[in-house]
C-alpha cells in the first residue's frame, strides 16, 4: 500500500493549508496556504494517476498549476492595491466583501 502514504501526506498538507487560511492574518501567508492546499490536491491527483496508470491526473495537475499561477498574479496585484489604499495587508483590517 505505498500510495496510502502519499494520500496521507496530501491530507496532512491540505489540512495544514486549510487551517492556515482560517487562522493566519497576513494575506500573503493566506495566499501561500491556498497554494499549499492546491498542491496537496495535485499530489493526490498524481498518486491516483500513477496508480491507475493514466495520464489524466498529470494533465489536471498542469491545468491547476497554470490557473494557480495566473490567480497568484491577479491576487498579488489586488493586494498591492489594497496595501496602497489601507497601508496594511492584515485581513482583519478590511471587510471589503460586505455587500
Amino acid at each position: 500500500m505505498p500510495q496510502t502514504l502519499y494520500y496521507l501526506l496530501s491530507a496532512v498538507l491540505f489540512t495544514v493549508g486549510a487551517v492556515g487560511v482560517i487562522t493566519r492574518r497576513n494575506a500573503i501567508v493566506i495566499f501561500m496556504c491556498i497554494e499549499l492546499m492546491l498542491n496537496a490536491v495535485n499530489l493526490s491527483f498524481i498518486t491516483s494517476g500513477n496508480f491507475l496508470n493514466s495520464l489524466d491526473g498529470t494533465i489536471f495537475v498542469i491545468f491547476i498549476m497554470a490557473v494557480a499561477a495566473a490567480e497568484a498574479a491577479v491576487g498579488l496585484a489586488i493586494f498591492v492595491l489594497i496595501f496602497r489604499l489601507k497601508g496594511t495587508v492584515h485581513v482583519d483590517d478590511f471587510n471589503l466583501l460586505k455587500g
Partner: protein
Amino acid sequence: MADLIWLIPAFPAIGFLINGLVGIRFPKTLTAWVACLSVIASFAVSATIFVQFLQLAPESRVFEKTVFDWIVSGDFKTQIGFRIDALSIIMCLVVSGVGSLIHIYSVGYMHDDPGFRRFFCYLNLFVFMMLTLVTGDNVLLMFVGWEGVGLCSYLLIGFWYEKDSASNAGKKAFIVNRIGDFGFLLGVFTLVGALGAAGVWTLKFSELQANAHLLGPGLATIITLLFFVGATGKSAQIPLYVWLPDAMEGPTPVSSLIHAATMVTAGVYMIARLNFLYVLAPTTLLVVTVVGLLTAFFAATIGCAQYDIKRVLAYSTVSQLGYMFVGVGAGAYAAGIFHLMTHAFFKGLLFLAAGSVMHAMSGELDMRKMGGLRKKIPITYWTTLIACLAIAGVPGLSGFFSKDEILWMAFSRYHSFWFWALGAVTAGLTAFYMFRMFFNTFHGECRASEEVKHHIHESPKVMTIPLMVLAVLSIIGGYVGVPHLLGGSNHIEKWLEPVVGHHAPAAATHSGGFGIVSTAFASAAEGHGAETSAEMQLMIGAIIIGLLGIFIAWLFYMKNPNIPKRFVEKFHGLFTLVHNKYFVDELYGFIFVKGLFKLGKVCKDFFDETIIDGIINGIAAALSGIGSLIRKIQSGFVQGYAFAIIFGAIIVIGYLISRIL
C-alpha cells in the same frame, strides 16, 4: 308566433342602445321618438300575441322560446328563454301599455331638463328589465330582471343626483332592495338544492311546476317564505316598505312608472307565477295575507297625515300593494293580478296628474299651498277625479271590482271577519285620504303665492293625452273582471285559470262576527246560493265604508275646513306620530343604521386594526428580525467566508464518507 316573444323585451333594449350609444348628437325630438316608439313597438307585439291567444283554446295559450344555453354545470342547466302565457301577457300589456303612456308624458314633462337623453335611456332600460322579468321562462332570468329594475330604480330615483336628498333616496331604495333580494337568492338556492336532491336540476317554470310535488311541506314553506322576503323588498311591504315613499325624489314620471306599471308589481307577479309552490305552503299564504293587510292599513293611516301630494300617493301605493298581497295570499292569484292591472291604470294616472299639478304650480308639492285649481287646469282636474273615484272603490269604476274581489276572497278563504274588516276600513281610509288630497288641491281658495298663481296653466297636449287615455282605462279597466254576482262572468279569472288554477273559495264554516257580517256568515253557511248573498252584503258594506270616507273628507275639507285644524290640535300627539310615519325611519335608523355603524366600528377597531393589521405587521417584524440576525453572517471578512466554505465542505464530505462506510 313563439319566435316573436323575445321581441317584447328586445325593443326597449334596442331603444336604450340607440339612445345610449349613438344618441349623443340626436336632437331631443329624435331621442323622444326612439324611446317612445321602442316601447310602443313592444306593446304592439304584446297586443298581437294577445289577440292570437284569444283565438286559441285556453290550454294552448302558452308560447315558449329558448334562445340559448346560459349556465350549464353538471346536471344543472339554465337557458335564456322566454315564456308567454295568460299571466305574462297581461303583465306585458300593462308594462308596455302604461309604460308607453308614461314615456309619451315624459316627453312633455322632462322637456327642459338637461338630462333629457339620459332620462329616456334609463326609462327604456327600466321597461326592458321589467319585460325580461315577466317574460323570462325561468327563475334566474326573472332574477336578472328583478335586479335590473332595482338598478334602474336606483338610477332614476337618484336622477337629479346633484340633490343630496335624491341621491340618498336612490341609495336607500337600492340597499333596502338588496336586503329583500338576499332572501330571494336564498330561496333560489334552497329550491335548486331541494329539487336537485330529488334528482331534478331545473329552474324553468314549466318543469318546476311539474316537479313541485317533490318538495315536502316544510321545504315548500321555507322556500316560499324566502321568496316572499324578496317580494317585501321589491313590492314595499312591511318591514321593507321604507324606500318607496323616499322614491318620490325622482322625476314624477319615474314615480308613476315604478308605482304603477313596473318594479313594485314584481313581487305580486312573482307570487302569482310561483303559485304552484305557494299552494303547497298554507302557512306562507297566511303570512302573505297578514303582512299585506297590515301594510295596507298601516300605510293608509300614514297617507291620511301627509301634506306632500306625492307622498300621499306613495303611501297609497304601499297600501294598494298590500291589497294585492292579500289577494294572492288568499290563493286568489287572479284577483291579485286583476287589482295589479287596475291599480296600474289609476295609480299611473294619479302620479301623472300630480306631475301635471306640479307643472302648473311651478314645482310646488305641498298641498297647503294649493287649492282652487279646478278651473285653471280642467283636464287634470277631471282625470284626477276619475282616478280618485276609482281608487276609492266607487261602484262602476275599475278599482271597485278588483278591490271588492280581493276583500271577498280574503273573507271566504280565511273565514275571518277581522281580515275583511281591516281591508274594508283600509278602503275607507283610502277614500278619505285620496279625497283629502283631491279637495285640498283642486277646491277651495288658492293658497299659492301671487307669483305662482300668475303662472298656473294647463299642461301641453303631450302630457294631457296620456292622462285622458289612462282615465278611460281607469273607468273601463274593471269590466274584464265583473263578478258573477253582478251578472258578469269574471273574464280575467277565467283567463288566468290555465296558469293559476281554478279558485274555489271554500264553503264558509265559522263562528263569530257581528252585524251585517254575521248575517253574511249565517247565510253563507246555508249553501252556494246563500254565498252570493253573503258576497252581496259584504260588497254593500264595503261600498258604504268607502262612501263614508269620501263624505268625511268632504266634511273636513269642503264643508267645514276648521275641523282638521281642531282635530290636529286636539290629538296633537297622535297626529305628530302619524305625520312622522310612526317614526319607523328613525327606528330603523337607530337600530340598523346606527347599529351597523357601531358594528362597523368594532370590526374596524378590533378585527381590522388589531387582528388583521397585527398579523401583517407581525409577519413583517418577524422577517426583519430574522434578517437582522442573518446579516451578521455577512461580515465582509474573507476568513469568515473561507471558514464557512471549509466547514460546509467538511460536513458534506463527512456525510458522504458516512454513507460509504
